[in-house]
């Protein structure tokens, strides 16, 4: 016989943090480079402006900035963290991973550290891994980060994609607690549709727009409703719905099908663009920062993206 991990309590989100590059790129800026215009971009994807990384911004540096803010907001010292998970699909290096570098730069001494690639659903996947780790007793405090530098993987001559994607990072600290602040995940994949979002020429992000739109607007509200059901929360009880900020029309289409007319719907994409795995924590952190999401609020999250993969869970705002 040997000892197995165990923990008596639950897992809660203690804090959020975010980072966006300083450089703002407007629709008018893009119209100087490719054949597009402000009205077209607003009507098709709902974006007015987005942030694009500068020369000093990397997946790791943005994760450090967002993670540091989450640590500070949670009142934790680096040595309190025993696991770091970075969700990303845009790091320049496959080896080494991002999480160990991020941990070292934050001064976190020798935590478990690994990356997750679940594309735009990455943060929701990583958040559940953190929650499971804490509830099983493998960790006490976990730093979870979604960080993406999509601008490295965009063809800036392709008007169908360059208007959508952006850069940024969002982070959360998950801690052991007597309460449960992270509901059961509903996650899954549809690998037979892997060819709808991929790297063209192994270099440029490409998506079959109509196929992705059809999938997201006809299938994913069911995943979100299952996450509510598994958490025992009625749609009319949620304060906000924060889906991956893929496209404003997708966000609004899914939101309309939830039966949650009272819920604030995150529309962070309007000024942040599509930041893949960063979009959910970035949107939540910004809503908290503007005072639009109060402590104790119940929020439904939904991540979805290349794979195709998806994950949804109910969380409580710290």
């Amino acid at each position, binding site marked *: 016989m040997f000892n197995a991990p165990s923990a008596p309590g639950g897992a809660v989100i203690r804090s959020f943090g975010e980072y966006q590059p300083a450089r703002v790129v407007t629709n008018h800026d893009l119209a100087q480079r490719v054949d597009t215009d402000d009205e077209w971009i607003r009507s*098709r994807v709902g974006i007015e402006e987005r942030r694009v990384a500068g020369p000093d911004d990397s997946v790791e540096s943005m994760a450090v900035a967002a993670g540091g803010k989450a640590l500070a907001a949670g009142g934790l010292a680096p040595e309190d963290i025993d696991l770091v998970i970075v969700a990303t699909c845009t790091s320049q290096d496959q080896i080494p991973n991002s999480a160990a570098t991020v941990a070292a730069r934050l001064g976190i001494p020798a935590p478990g550290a690994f990356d997750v690639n679940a594309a735009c659903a990455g943060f929701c996947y990583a958040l559940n891994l953190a929650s499971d780790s804490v509830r099983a007793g493998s960790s006490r405090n976990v730093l979870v980060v979604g960080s993406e530098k999509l601008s490295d993987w965009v063809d800036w001559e392709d008007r169908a994609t360059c208007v959508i994607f952006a850069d940024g990072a969002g982070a959360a600290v998950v801690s052991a607690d007597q309460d449960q602040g992270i509901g059961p995940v509903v996650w899954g994949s549809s690998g037979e549709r892997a060819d709808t979002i991929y790297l063209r020429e192994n270099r440029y992000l490409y998506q079959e727009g109509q196929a992705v739109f059809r999938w997201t*607007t006809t299938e994913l509200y069911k995943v979100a409703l299952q996450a509510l059901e598994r958490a025992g929360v009625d749609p009319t009880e949620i304060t906000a719905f924060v889906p991956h900020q893929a496209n404003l029309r997708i966000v609004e289409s899914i939101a309309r099908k939830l039966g949650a007319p009272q819920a604030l719907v995150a529309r962070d994409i309007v000024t942040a663009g599509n930041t893949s795995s960063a979009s959910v924590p970035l949107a939540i952190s910004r809503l908290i920062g503007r005072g639009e999401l109060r402590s104790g609020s119940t929020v439904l999250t939904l991540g979805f993206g290349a794979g195709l993969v998806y994950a949804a869970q109910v969380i409580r705002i710290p």
Partner: protein
Amino acid sequence: MAAHSEQEILAGLGEIVEEIVGTEPSEVTPEKSFVDDLDIDSLSMVEIAVAAQDKFGVEIPDDQLKDLKTVQDVINYIQK
């Protein structure tokens, strides 16, 4: 599912277009082009295809959408 008459399909498409882009159903006539006359973009065409499938039980896959340029094209596809 029983076949639908051309008039039924036209009326149904009028309702669908009104719901998706707010156009008056009377504007939705067979010769109209979705893109040029009804101001419907590629994503709204997907919504129309999904709604038409629910209403008429005929699946319109994405790879067919580019060939369905006019209201009459969709009527023909559903009746096929």
